[in-house]
């Protein structure tokens, strides 16, 4: 049946494109292509391996056709074979084909999508499907989606389908509904009000047949969420609470405790000043369309991260991985731009940002003295709503100062103090926690129009894990071209033999929508996280080619 649907959608798409090619009567075709290739060289010093294929390539291309109220498209993907470090247990991700195909039309207040689609309810606490190629995550829905505007400011969404699982679909069937009311749009008298209020609610249920030999498992697991967003002038408060009924799974060790989550973010902004504070409390909220799935597979929801995604290399060494089985986090961030033409602001002003985030365990107590916490086949543990445990998972304190000195020189200087609970966040036992201080200086000097030279100096100082690191980077940009050299040196490794230089050289060509980059060098073993979702990055040595194009 799946093959028939796939074939039909492919034929429809091909038919549409041939029609476009023949007649081009007002439709529009858009698309993009990206390919990431790596030639692997064995390097025993850093633990890099060669592969039998010598070269591995991940490629994908999206095509979409739009005409009036109708659009359709597909994504052609090929993992030949899958790059190391991407989810590919037993070669499950290797292959080539068209896993994503969709068609959509709207009629008056109704919008229908058939095939694959990505959707999010609220902040994603109970439903978010998305594609993140850098992580190898694609949990697209395959089924139907209906969006209906009941009246101005009142919206309803319904979804049904299964989730993509590499080249197949997961066993669970997902049904969901989401409604939102934007009161200022619904009530004309409030249309121009400074106070803007919206509220929403959603419900998602997954069905997976119960076949466990020992435990009585729920065939249907439901989760509901309510959210409220209030905006008043420069203030914005966004909050959402979610609840999930008993959902024993491999990830929570088959406990029957309901899950809860609360997310609150508040921002204030005015000219030259921005403040963000937020908190998140999560208890047993792993929600997957296969109760036996783990890692990044078949997640129905996504807990938004409370910590910062660092873009510089060394701060990103120890990224935070969300803990859906229980975590409390809080963050605070202040941006302030010192005005122009002041002593500290100078001619162009100076921007200072202070950031703090902290994540701890939630407090869990036994349901009985003789039953350890999270014992299989039990209610797991007791916890009070918004309880906070003692164990610290992660802490990030950083300050960043960016300044444009004149028309040619721009600098960005930052300092970060990091605590990283290695055992919890890496899922290991017995490793010492990491305390690190990180300093970064980023200088960009514009030589002439289109010609600039950028340098980065980064240092990470820690007595734990692999010790101190230093990084130096220089990048020359000229029209259409860039050239980069950087060395990431583990000069403080406790083992003198492992004080490796991870040297990289590369260049790229950018022209319109096309970008080609070639890099040669070593990459350290580590973890990469985006939005609290992580994958392991293996050590590698070799040549990497990246090609992307849009039209």
């Amino acid at each position, binding site marked *: 049946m799946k093959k028939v649907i796939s074939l039909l959608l492919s034929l429809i798409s091909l038919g549409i494109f041939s029609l476009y090619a023949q007649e081009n009567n007002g439709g529009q075709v858009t698309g993009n292509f990206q390919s990431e290739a790596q030639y692997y060289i064995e390097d025993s010093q850093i633990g890099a391996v060669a592969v039998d294929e010598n070269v591995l390539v991940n490629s994908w291309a999206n095509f979409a056709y739009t005409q009036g109220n109708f659009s359709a498209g597909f994504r052609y993907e090929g993992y030949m074979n899958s790059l190391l470090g991407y989810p590919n247990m037993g070669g499950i991700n290797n292959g080539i084909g068209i896993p994503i195909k969709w068609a959509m039309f709207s009629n008056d207040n109704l919008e229908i999508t058939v095939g694959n689609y990505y959707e999010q309810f609220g902040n994603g606490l109970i439903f978010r499907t998305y594609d993140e190629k850098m992580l190898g995550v694609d949990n697209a829905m395959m089924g139907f989606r209906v969006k209906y505007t009941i009246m101005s400011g009142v919206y309803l969404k319904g979804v049904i389908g299964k989730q993509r699982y590499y080249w197949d679909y997961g066993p669970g069937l997902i049904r969901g509904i989401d409604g939102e009311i934007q009161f200022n749009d619904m009530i004309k008298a409030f249309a121009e009000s400074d106070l803007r209020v919206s509220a929403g609610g959603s419900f998602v249920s997954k069905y997976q047949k119960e076949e466990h030999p*020992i435990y009585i498992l*729920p065939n249907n697991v439901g989760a509901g969420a309510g959210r409220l967003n209030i905006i008043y002038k420069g203030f914005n408060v966004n909050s959402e609470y979610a609840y999930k009924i008993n959902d024993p799974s491999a990830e929570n060790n088959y406990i029957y405790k309901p899950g809860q989550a609360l997310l609150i973010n508040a921002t204030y902004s005015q000219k030259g000043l921005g403040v963000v504070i937020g908190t998140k409390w999560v208890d047993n909220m792993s929600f997957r369309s296969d109760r036996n799935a783990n890692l990044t597979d078949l997640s129905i929801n996504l807990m938004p991260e409370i910590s910062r995604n660092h873009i510089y290399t060394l701060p990103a060494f120890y990224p935070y991985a969300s803990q859906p089985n229980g975590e409390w986090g809080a963050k605070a961030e202040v941006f302030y731009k010192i005005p122009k033409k002041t002593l500290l602001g100078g001619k162009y002003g100076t921007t200072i940002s202070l950031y703090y985030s902290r994540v701890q365990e939630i407090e869990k107590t036994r349901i009985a003295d*003789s039953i*350890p916490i999270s014992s*299989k*086949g039990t209610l797991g543990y007791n916890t009070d709503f918004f309880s906070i445990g003692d164990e610290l998972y992660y802490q990030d304190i950083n300050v960043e100062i960016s300044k444009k000195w004149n028309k040619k020189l721009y600098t960005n200087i930052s300092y970060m103090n990091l605590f990283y609970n290695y055992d919890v966040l890496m899922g290991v036992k017995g490793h010492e926690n990491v305390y690190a201080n990180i300093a970064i200086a980023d200088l960009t000097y514009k030589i002439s129009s289109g010609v600039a030279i950028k340098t980065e100096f980064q240092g990470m100082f820690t007595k734990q894990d692999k010790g101190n690191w230093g990084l130096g980077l220089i990048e020359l940009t000229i029209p259409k071209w860039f050239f980069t050299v950087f060395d990431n040196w583990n000069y403080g490794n406790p083992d003198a033999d492992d004080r490796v230089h991870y040297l990289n050289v590369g260049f790229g060509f950018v022209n319109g929508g096309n970008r080609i980059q070639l890099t040669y060098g070593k990459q350290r073993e580590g973890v990469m996280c985006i939005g609290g979702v992580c994958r392991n990055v293996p050590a590698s040595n070799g040549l990497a080619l990246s090609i992307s194009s849009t039209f």
Partner: protein
Amino acid sequence: MKTKHIIIASLILVGFLSSCDKLEEPFVKDNAFIWNGRKSIIFDITGQKCGNCPRAHETINSLVDKYGEVVIPIAIHATWYAKPATSDTALPYHYDFRTDIGDYLGGRDFSTGFYGELYLPTGMVNSYAPEKLSTHDKWTLALSEFLENYPEFLIKIEGSHSENDSTISCDVEVTTNIINSRQLGLTVYVLEDHILQWQTDYTLDNQDIENYEHNHVLRAGMNGPFGEEIKTNTNQTNVGDVLEKSYSISTKADWVIENCLIVAFVHDLDTKEILQGEVFHFSE
């Protein structure tokens, strides 16, 4: 029209709300076996000339088949039934299974040991208290009392063998898994599987079986018959507290190291209950 929309939305919402299976305890299916991590020690006091002892071996085999790693049997050859019939290796029942530990517990030849006068086969489940001795037909029931218990302790064994000085060594870690205030003992034995020797079986016409497979045979104790005290007071131990011990013992010429295993178990020195066991196989 608006009323219609609201009704439709409400119906959809109600439909989805019904898609929840809220469960109440118990969460376990009828007759399902749940193991929560407690491993059980079964002492099987036996002898090669004990014609009823293969029945006890069968009971143990059936328990191992059913529960796998949950069951850790220890075959202690003792009493007159363990005494070799001859020293001539060409003749039946020449092999000597006896050990110092077995002699102490069950008695050597016609003398009695710690457990007094014994009628084989006999044994115990998760205890070394004399009053817990029972015939093998009681072991399944006795084991069922412990099967679903959560372990108060977890044991980790790292074993090694040195051919140079013919020793077996091990490091044993005992980690508290449930808060308790027990005085604790740790016993470590060396066992061997797959010993092919004579065995009497009264159910057979030819009652003397030449290549009977003797499994989990006690070879030696690494720290005495009842081990040693590793926690001398009744102060509370907390989850994650670790007690560590290391032992070493000389091997004997007839031991096949690949078939040997180290068994460690912790016991309450007051109640004599064995609280958790663990195995290290040299073949792995």
